[in-house]
């Protein structure tokens, strides 16, 4: 009986809180936010959170365009998708003053190409894509993308590259020092020729398998995401993740404020909550990427705080996001990729 009364009281209390403080509807990647953090947000604000999940940026975009706008308050698109969504008019804007913790955003992520001035988005987590090398096979210098595109003899024929057009062409462009969305014939021809020559040194294309081939020894070097490389290291492979001097690819997931959000005020509160260093660190500890928020270090797990994959050396160049090309330009890059794999 007492249990029943307590439960009833709790339900009444919850219902009261929900009515008083309202709701928040989040559209998020699967397994990308710890439940304890959501509970903490509800405990602090009384806002009841419902989360629907998706497994790709494109699936999220398609679903929102197919009539789910107005149903969600926030979503978590990747960098290029923020730009696409803004272009499609799916994002609302906010003033920095609305979010008390806005100043916690790390300076390097404040003015990003996909959302200049951060008008609709805040950083969630970021990571990088370059390559890793098995140090037992090749102990030499790995500070250049030439390891992948013009490899030393020890690594030739033992290289795995990501089976992903965006990453391969972006890293190739960075290696040659040409823009990612070029229409210049000489530059595109150079990229095409460089990739065809590099392919003769490659053993395989694989994204899902990028970690396994390094762990098993099928590949001695491989293009890889930084989080994946740290897992390879944790599984016992003597691999080192490189931050090459020409640059590397970065990606960032961002919390965006959706247009027609039914609970705009609560969405702002949620974004503010996620910019608190302790909360941002909780996501990082869960997902093992890197937060785009300053002051998270004291709250990070030791392994993540000191991970060489998550902490670029001080002299590392800035990473580049994969650029969003217009349709005509994209056609040229599609042709280069098909030519590489035909």
């Amino acid at each position, binding site marked *: 009986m007492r249990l029943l009364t307590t439960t009833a009281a709790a339900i009444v209390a919850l219902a009261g809180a929900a009515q008083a403080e309202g709701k928040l509807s989040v559209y998020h990647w699967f397994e990308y936010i710890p439940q304890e953090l959501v509970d903490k947000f509800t405990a602090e604000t009384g806002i009841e959170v419902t989360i629907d999940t998706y497994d*790709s*940026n*494109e699936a999220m*975009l*398609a679903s929102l365009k197919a009539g789910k706008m107005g149903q969600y308050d926030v979503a978590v698109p990747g960098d*290029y998708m923020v730009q*696409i969504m803004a272009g499609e008019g799916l994002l609302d804007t906010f003033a920095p003053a609305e979010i008390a913790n806005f100043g916690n955003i790390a300076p390097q992520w404040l003015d990003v190409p996909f959302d200049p001035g951060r008008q609709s988005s805040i950083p969630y987590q970021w990571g990088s894509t370059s390559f890793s090398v098995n140090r037992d096979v090749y102990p030499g210098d790995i500070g250049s993308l030439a390891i992948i595109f013009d490899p030393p003899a020890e690594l030739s024929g033992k290289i795995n590259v990501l*089976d992903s*057009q*965006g990453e391969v062409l972006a890293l190739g462009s960075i290696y040659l020092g040409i823009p990612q969305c070029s229409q210049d*014939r000489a530059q*595109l*021809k150079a990229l*095409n020729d460089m990739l065809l020559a590099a*392919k003769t040194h*490659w*053993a*395989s*294309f*694989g994204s899902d*398998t990028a970690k396994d081939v390094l762990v*098993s*020894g*099928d590949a001695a070097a491989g293009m890889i995401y930084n989080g994946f490389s740290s897992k390879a290291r944790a599984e016992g492979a003597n691999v080192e993740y490189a931050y090459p001097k020409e640059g590397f690819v970065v990606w960032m997931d961002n919390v965006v404020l959706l247009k027609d959000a039914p609970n705009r005020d609560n969405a702002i509160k949620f974004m503010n909550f996620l910019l608190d260093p302790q909360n941002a660190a909780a996501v990082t500890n869960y997902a093992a990427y890197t937060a785009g928020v300053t002051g998270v270090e004291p709250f990070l797990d030791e392994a993540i705080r000191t991970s060489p994959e998550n902490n670029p050396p001080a002299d590392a160049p800035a990473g580049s996001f994969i650029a969003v090309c217009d*349709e005509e330009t*994209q*056609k*040229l890059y*599609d*042709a*280069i*990729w*098909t*030519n590489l*794999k*035909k």
Partner: protein
Amino acid sequence: MAGGAASGGTQGREYRAVALPLLLPAWLVIGIFMVLPVLLMGVYSFLTKEFRGGVIWDFTLAAYDQFFVYRGLFGDEPPTLEWTYITIFWRSIWQAGLATALCLAVGFPTAWFIATRPVRTRTMWLFLITVPYWVNLLIRTVSLKFLIRDNGPLNEGLMALGLIDGPLPLVNTNLAVQLGLFYSYLPFMVLPIYAAVERYDFALSEAAADLYAGRWTTLREIVLPAVRPGIVAGAILVFVPSLGAFLAPDLLGGAKTYMIGSLIDEQFRGSQGNWPFGAAAAMILMTLVLIALILYARAQGRGRPA
């Protein structure tokens, strides 16, 4: 006689009255799961590509144009035949044909062996053939990769025995792809041939021997024609899925070159896809397979005594 004819007519009506509802599920399945999707794919192949996935409902031949016509990287050269996709198709057809031949070479003796065992042990042999197929195809393919990789048990074992000095380069080769396809589809060859051989009347072989036919002559002139339907069914069952396979080429071959399957797959994934082109490539593939099957069926029809 008149009564017989009348009763036959009644039977026909009764037959139809029973047959219609009984056929309905089959029609629904074929209609919903085969005809509709193929029609949909046909329509999509003539639509306009929407940038970053999806289609715009404007009819165009752009997808077929992309498949067959090459105008240079920048689209301003005089049009010539586009070899890119024809090359990819030819590579897949060649791989599938080779896998079919390999399956036939191993599958026919296997089926013959099983069919000539005593009746009570045949079931066990058939059972053993199917055992590996209780495991998901992806897992079997990955396992095969584990076996043949440079530091896998096969290479390490051979090296330990001193038979080879360094690992045989198996993984990421066409040989590995062949091995994967062969392993994946072998039972599709064995089972139909077994069914045909089991029905074969071995007295015919004895008769041939009595008439002084040698072993090869008997096989060629008597056995093969008798079990041909089984071989054809097996060949089709192996060839068609091999043609669209992309697990074995991707995992065992290293995905360095497109196969038909991976080419089409990529058109429907991510933001760089091209749905009408993917649909067009699938339609062209289906048309090729259909033409091959129709030609075969007609050749069969002519070869059969009237």
